[in-house]
């Protein structure tokens, strides 16, 4: 266990340069690449000269690059991520409004993926080459191939338009308290069960839409890694030792886990960066939606803020995945 501690410390230390790399990259894109960042941030061609000048002062754009970088980091750390010329609000506040919606949707669809895809993959592996296996694989293939926009519209058509049992758009009703920004969790914490039910009904269709391709990928990976584990010598030996039931399958499943976690982590990262199409079709007020609006309005600070947030999210998800690896596999702890 001592090794695990050292591994975590080492992993956290490498985390710092990665974060710095992300910051540097976003800094370069936002400060160095544009010919006149101040004008861009002020809203482009139609920006008033005095506003441009004010921004130049405010963001130290007349200073040399390394000084600018210093102020950039300092501002980011002190919570000043810039201000949107469109919404006239601090970017961080905007992100704080939109990100929880994406986070909530990402969690919901990841839960869906896990509870659907992993059992399917396991069944498929244990019933290898039977009709069940073929059906699961066909389903997985469908998941991977179906276009998201088509699936979204079909789901809306069936469950909203035809059956009228689920809402087509929106996030539901905001709970009266906002501890986490996650509507489902907050409405439970506030004891508002009617709102919880409404919000749940709103998240179902977008969550299914987002989860569907992931279900295909993860069911496949699960099937293959379970088969891989099953064919290893130590599973043979486990059987020869007389292990059975849970004690036997835990060896198979734990060994099959590493590739599954990898893909799941990647999927979760993508979901957190905002599913533009899904969020647009379902009018889900998430980060993808925000990014599209920002791009359409040429809201440069908002675009850069979103980019930075997504970069950080990826790095953090990666860190979490690595920590889970180390918890599962002692060989990685070195």
């Amino acid at each position, binding site marked *: 266990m001592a090794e695990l501690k050292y591994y975590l410390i080492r992993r956290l230390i490498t985390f710092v340069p990665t974060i710095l790399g992300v910051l540097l990259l976003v800094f370069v894109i936002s400060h160095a690449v544009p010919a006149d960042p101040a004008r861009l941030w002020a809203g482009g061609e139609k920006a008033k000269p005095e506003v441009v000048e004010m921004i130049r002062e405010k963001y130290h754009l007349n200073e040399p690059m390394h000084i600018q970088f210093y102020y950039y980091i300092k501002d980011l750390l002190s919570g000043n991520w810039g201000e949107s010329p469109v919404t006239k609000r601090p970017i961080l506040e905007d992100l704080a409004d939109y990100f929880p919606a994406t986070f909530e949707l990402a969690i919901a669809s990841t839960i869906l993926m896990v509870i659907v895809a992993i059992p399917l993959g396991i069944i498929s592996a244990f019933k290898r080459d039977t009709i069940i296996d073929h059906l699961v694989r066909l389903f997985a293939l469908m998941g991977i191939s179906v276009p998201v926009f088509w699936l979204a519209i079909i789901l809306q058509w069936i469950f909203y338009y035809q059956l009228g049992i689920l809402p087509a758009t929106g996030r539901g009703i905001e709970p009266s308290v906002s501890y986490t920004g996650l509507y489902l969790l907050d409405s439970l914490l506030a004891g508002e069960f009617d709102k919880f039910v409404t919000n749940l009904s709103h998240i179902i269709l977008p969550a299914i839409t987002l989860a569907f391709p992931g279900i295909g990928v993860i069911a496949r990976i699960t099937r293959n890694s379970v088969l891989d584990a099953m064919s290893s*010598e*130590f599973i043979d*030996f486990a*059987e*020869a030792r*007389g292990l059975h039931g849970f004690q036997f399958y835990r*060896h198979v499943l734990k*060994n099959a886990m590493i590739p599954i976690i990898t893909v799941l982590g990647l999927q979760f990262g993508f979901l957190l960066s905002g599913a533009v199409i899904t969020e647009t079709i379902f009018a889900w007020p998430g980060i993808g939606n925000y990014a599209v609006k920002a791009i359409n309005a040429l809201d440069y600070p908002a675009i850069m803020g979103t980019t930075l947030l997504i970069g950080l999210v990826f790095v953090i998800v990666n860190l979490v995945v690595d920590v889970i690896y180390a918890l599962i596999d*002692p*060989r990685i702890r070195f």
Partner: protein
Amino acid sequence: MSDILLEVKDLKVNFYTYAGVVKAVDGVSFSVRKGEFFSIVGETGCGKSVTARAITKLIKPPGRIVGGKVLFEGKNLLKLPEKELKKIRGKEIAYIYQDPSSALDPLYTVGYQIAETVAVHNPLIKIKNAFTKAVEILKEVAIPDPVKRSTNYPHELSGGMKQRVVIGIAMVNKPKLIIADEPTTALDVTIQAQILDLLKELKEKYNTTIMMITHNLGVVAQVSDRVMVMYAGKVVEIAPVEELFEKPLHPYTQGLLAAVPNPLKKVEEIKAIPGFVPDMINVPKGCRFRPRCKFATEKCLQQPSLIEVEKDHWVACWKYWKR
């Protein structure tokens, strides 16, 4: 006979591959006596491991046991339901596998893997409480600092240590029969001798029976009481160890021994015998050794059965048939 622990009768195992049916084990019969050290030798691919695994029905598709009986203390294991077999594997009949680096699950400590082997066969013992047992057995297989070692993962131990752990796992439930499938093949020569000594020592101490598979005649000479020689899925000779080394009867056994002037040398392939081990899909008609045998006659187009030429010395060769 009551001194017989395991009796294998006419065992047949086929593998159904795309290239055709592989008769990996084709009518193998032998018996193992209580308390003896029984060895099976033969070149790689002759069906030793398949025989060993078939004893407790550990054959997976595309393989299938297509005939025969395995009588263990009089019960036919091949007729037992899977549930009963699970109680026998690792408890009454324990295995030691060839490569200790792949026999242990890399994600669990060695202590855990010993403990769960105890717990699974003793419903009254929880895995947590079986750890003391694990430490005891690690001490027994001469692993230094067993308390600390029990918390190690397999990758933290050397190959020899891992094989000691595997032996510990096999011994921990005091089985009646241990089937060791090439227990020293994957190890360094210096370690091999230690592992063999350990096996012998534990066998005496617990009065168990060992059936060991190897393709190393030196190993055979060192530890066995009786030896069975296999060739291409068939038994060609069974004899007490001194008898086999002094007076090998089957032309294959003779070639095998001639090929190894120094029995401590490892043999992968028998170079002194011309020809190759037959392709197991299109086996030669009759005696499978016929194409390589300098004594082959017309008669050898029919399969000879095992006969007892001298007391306890069995051979499957027409040379020794007196009409």
